[in-house]
């Protein structure tokens, strides 16, 4: 439409989750419909960009050295749950059923997309797993070829440390009937069955 508007669109539509149409809506909203919201957005972006950074220990977002979870004295320091990305961590936290610490890998191995071991946040994890207080590393990576291969790789890397390595289970969604589950999920659910008390 105008050169500056087009440049803005181009930047916006590169953002994750935004297509051309949503980029257009956002641009028009900020420039024409609600220009007063633009200032606060710019300010918030600037402030966040200046203060938010990865936690030096686990890779979660933090404003100081450590994130809120690593800094929390009430978390169980004996277990580390390894996830791919921060949103996975947020999802686990929302479940409210985990009281240990996390480690965010910032991805999973995917050579065809150029993601190798060097691109992953692995060194701090090995260091942490080597400390005496850690007893268990829980692998909460996705259940696809790349996620599973990353689990194989992690368990090789962790072989030297004296920790229990576990993998989260895959099975039926809560409240879901067997009849609605797809065959692959049912297979995982059967493989992951346990004794019933």
């Amino acid at each position, binding site marked *: 439409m105008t050169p500056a508007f087009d440049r803005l669109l181009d930047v916006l539509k590169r953002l994750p989750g935004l297509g051309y149409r949503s980029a257009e809506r956002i641009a028009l909203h900020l420039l024409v419909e609600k220009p007063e919201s633009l200032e606060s957005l710019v300010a918030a972006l600037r402030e966040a960009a200046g203060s938010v950074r990865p936690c030096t220990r686990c890779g979660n977002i933090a404003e100081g050295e450590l994130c809120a979870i690593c800094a929390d004295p009430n978390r169980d320091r004996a277990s580390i749950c390894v996830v791919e990305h921060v949103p996975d961590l947020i999802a686990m936290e929302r479940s409210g059923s985990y009281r240990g610490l996390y480690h965010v890998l910032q991805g999973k*191995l995917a050579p065809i997309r150029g993601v190798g071991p060097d691109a992953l946040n692995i060194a701090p994890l090995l260091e942490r797993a080597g400390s005496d207080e850690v007893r268990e590393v829980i692998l909460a990576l996705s259940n696809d*070829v790349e996620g599973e291969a990353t689990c194989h790789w992690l368990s090789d890397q962790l072989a030297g440390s004296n920790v229990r390595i576990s993998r989260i289970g895959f099975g039926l969604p809560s409240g879901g009937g067997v009849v609605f589950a797809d*065959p692959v999920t049912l297979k995982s659910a059967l493989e992951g069955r346990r004794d019933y008390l």
Partner: protein
Amino acid sequence: MKLSTIRLQNFRNIAEASLEFGRGRVFFVGANGQGKTNLLEAIGYVSALRAFRPGDNRALIRDGAGEAGIGYVLEHERTGRSEVIVRIRLRGKEATLDGEPVRRLADYLGRFPTVLFSSGDIQLIRGAPAGRRRFLDLHLAGCEPGYLEALQKYHRALEHRNRLLKEGGAGSALKAFEREMAPAAVRLIAARRQAMEKLGGLVEAFHGRISDGAETGTVAYRPDVEADSAEAFLALLAKNKMRDVQVGSTQRGPHRDDFAFRLGGKDAAIFASEGQQRALVLALRFGQLRDVRERSGVAPLVLADDVLGELDPVRRERFWAALEDDVQLFATGTTLPGNAGEGQWQVFRVEAGVFREA
């Protein structure tokens, strides 16, 4: 299984068609290029939501239209009356089964089997191994639970391994992907072996009924590697690694599997005449039909694209004899099947994408 109604919109050269099928044997007759095979392809699309001729979605959508649509009403042995609706767009497609969206192909494949007899089938014998693997993979993906999952997993992990090999294969990630490949490879080899043993017997039996020669015709699995455990497959990868790194890709594995057609103990690709080769591929299709039916309890729809015309009267008679009476057959040809007799066929005349019941 029976197809009772098909509706088409903007599929290839067919602007609009709505056909109802009553009898078990349906014949589409017309000159070349009028749309007979297009209709057969639309029927076959119901099996795997893909066309049997290569090409992208653009080729499936009529010129000038935004999307193509196919609606099917089927009578199914297990699920009764089922309705499938498919929309094909330039990018992607959507399907619903009885109003529910089909989200994963793996859950859908194999429900509505079809078996295609085509004059191009002779390429299964003469062509490259990739064509035979494709036949075997499509067959097993439809009737062997877990096969498609193993196939996708194997190929995905293989792709990653090949990339790592191109980069020298030195890193610690290589082994991680090999460990994903290994159980899938073992699964593929075992499923293919079992299926080929069964198909081998079926092909031999049907070949005996179709051909008049005394020679035995059959098919035999030619696995590229033997591995009956993940450990054995990992050992093979380790053994071949140096060469794999030199070439920059995985040289051995089920992605190089093949099967051979044999006639009188000899390789039919080299020693059989054209007529003998045609009899062999017919026998393979009959074997596939029987295997699907026995495994799933569902009688596939049979699609015969221009094959009846190229058979001599004796073979054609045997073709009918080999076909079970209760399967529904859709055949095409430029002339009506001479000896079929009036009233036995439901005939549609095809001209420029328009179908008229005769």
